[in-house]
């Protein structure tokens, strides 16, 4: 119940933030934060719960971004429909590629998903007839929804905020349900899960597809914040960012990843780091975390509780 209370408080605070903060810069950071936290949570579903270290998420992020932009600019679809299209396209591609990819062993899975992401980047750069190549699609129009234009940073803030709440809500409902339990069972000990009647493939595929869809949707919204989509949208930097959030928060911990995302977005800005320096620090965070606290901040708390229990029961 404490969690519910704190969550409500945080949501309320975020909802009224634009009333007090008028800096476009800060609002822009917050928008990035909302979008990135969804991507991190989606990656957490795939990696932290299903146990699949999938670099393909970067590919779906890019697919979503381009799909939404192309749908609006070339397809003349509305913003909402385009974003839904982005999610759907990502999901379909995830479904089709998921089948063969999820069957491979650990080593191969990582490398194939990595290659998939690189392929998407190459396609973005080289399939000029569709993606406009290296120049990308600039001057994306302001997103509108039934005539309401998200023209100002404040309005876009609420759009991103609503999306984040919705997406995280879906993920929360999922990971705290039995499906989350079964995913974790499969991740921990697939042979045991099978001997207990669990079929791993449908669950893994489901996580893979949902993760792709949510990330595609996030990408589709984010390009309208950037107002441009080009091959740099598939820069590895995004994947590294999502990974850091998951690793630091603790793969497999919903709240850990959400809180870590918020911190990692806010802190570097507060400390006024340049982009490069921020990434260097992310790199250090990743290395240190992997050596010292491989299960993230959530893992540290978990281990403390474990030791306390051990002492109590000994």
């Amino acid at each position, binding site marked *: 119940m404490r969690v519910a209370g704190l969550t409500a408080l945080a949501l309320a605070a975020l909802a009224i933030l634009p009333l007090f903060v008028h800096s476009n810069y800060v609002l822009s950071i917050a928008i990035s934060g909302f979008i990135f936290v969804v991507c991190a949570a989606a990656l957490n579903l795939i*990696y932290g719960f299903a146990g699949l*270290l999938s670099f393909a998420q970067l590919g779906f992020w890019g697919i979503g971004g381009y799909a939404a932009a192309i749908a609006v600019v070339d397809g003349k679809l509305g913003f909402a429909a385009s974003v839904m299209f982005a999610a759907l396209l990502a999901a379909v591609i995830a479904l089709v590629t998921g089948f*063969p*990819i999820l*069957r*491979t*062993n*650990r*080593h*191969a899975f*990582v*490398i*194939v998903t*990595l*290659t*998939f992401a*690189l*392929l998407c980047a*190459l*396609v973005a750069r*080289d*399939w*000029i007839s569709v993606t406009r190549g290296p120049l990308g699609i600039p001057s994306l129009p302001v997103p509108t929804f039934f005539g309401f234009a998200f023209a100002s940073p404040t309005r876009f803030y609420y759009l991103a905020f609503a999306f984040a709440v919705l997406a995280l809500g879906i993920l929360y409902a999922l990971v705290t349900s039995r499906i989350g339990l079964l995913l974790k069972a499969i991740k921990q000990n697939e042979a045991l899960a099978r001997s207990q009647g669990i079929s791993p493939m449908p669950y893994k595929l489901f996580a893979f597809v949902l993760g792709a869809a949510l990330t595609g949707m996030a990408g589709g919204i984010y390009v309208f914040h950037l107002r441009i989509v080009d091959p740099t949208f598939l820069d*590895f930097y995004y994947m*590294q960012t999502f*990974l850091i959030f998951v*690793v630091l928060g603790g793969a497999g911990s919903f709240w850990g990843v959400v809180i870590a995302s918020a911190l990692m977005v806010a802190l570097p800005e507060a400390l006024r780091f*340049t982009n*490069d*320096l921020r*990434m*260097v620090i*992310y*790199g*250090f*965070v*990743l*290395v240190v975390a*992997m*050596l010292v606290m*491989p299960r993230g901040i959530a893992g540290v708390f978990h281990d403390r509780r474990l030791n306390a229990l051990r002492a109590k029961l000994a």
Partner: protein
Amino acid sequence: MEISLTYFLQLTVNGIVLGLLYGLIAVGLALIFGVMEIVNFAHGEIVMVGAFAMMFALPLFALGYWPAALVAMLVTGALGLLLYELLLARIERSEFERSILVTLGISMILLYGMQYLFTATPRLVDTNLGFEGFELGDIRITWIRCVAAFAALAAFVALGLILRFTQFGLAMRAIAQNRDAALMIGIKPRQVARNGVMVATALCGLAGAALAPIQSVQPAMGQALIFKAFALTVIGGLGHMGGALVVAIMLGLIESWSAAFTDAVWQEASVFIVMIVIVLVRPEGLFGGKRVRLG
């Protein structure tokens, strides 16, 4: 499209040189995987460090190619040692994802760190070999490419000899082929792993030094190389060095030829598509056996 024989041969020569350099990188990757079962995401960045080291060392030797290249190899070898002792040695073989994330972190530190220190601007590197070359019939081969190919070949021969005839090399092969058996006969895994990493990173340094005058030097140069190197290592069979080399040369040739023949669009993509297909169909690679092998 009319392609003259000369042009084709020119492309072939360039392709072989490129392939040999890819090979240096891929073989190092395979070596590290063979002795540690770690996929080194920072491998490309180590090549980049080698290139930068070459760039900074050249003026110290009046642009002398060989001394500067040697310095580059020493720098990256030392870097490899440092990374191994501080970080890689602490990761268990079974923790595959953890090793990926650690090396990913290292790659980020190196890449963005170099970018922060030296900006992303590409720099041209000049050596005492200049940009002249010699003619072979109608084909022109620059000295820097010629020397690069020679250096790469020499490195492969040296590596081959080391693996076959020295205690050091045999130990590495033993660990890669059957770790438990190797441990039982007293081979020290830490030592072998450390040596393997140092050899692999030294090869990176050589590749970086050789690439520096051919391509320009910039912090992001490792990124483009590394993913191809992964592709090669996987297609050849993770841990299989001979396989990585063969595939590397093929890749160099294909890239060089397809630049002329096909639309650039699918040139790079085709490599990756081939790789995905091979990994899905034959996960142990073209040359790999059930176990990872060296050579």
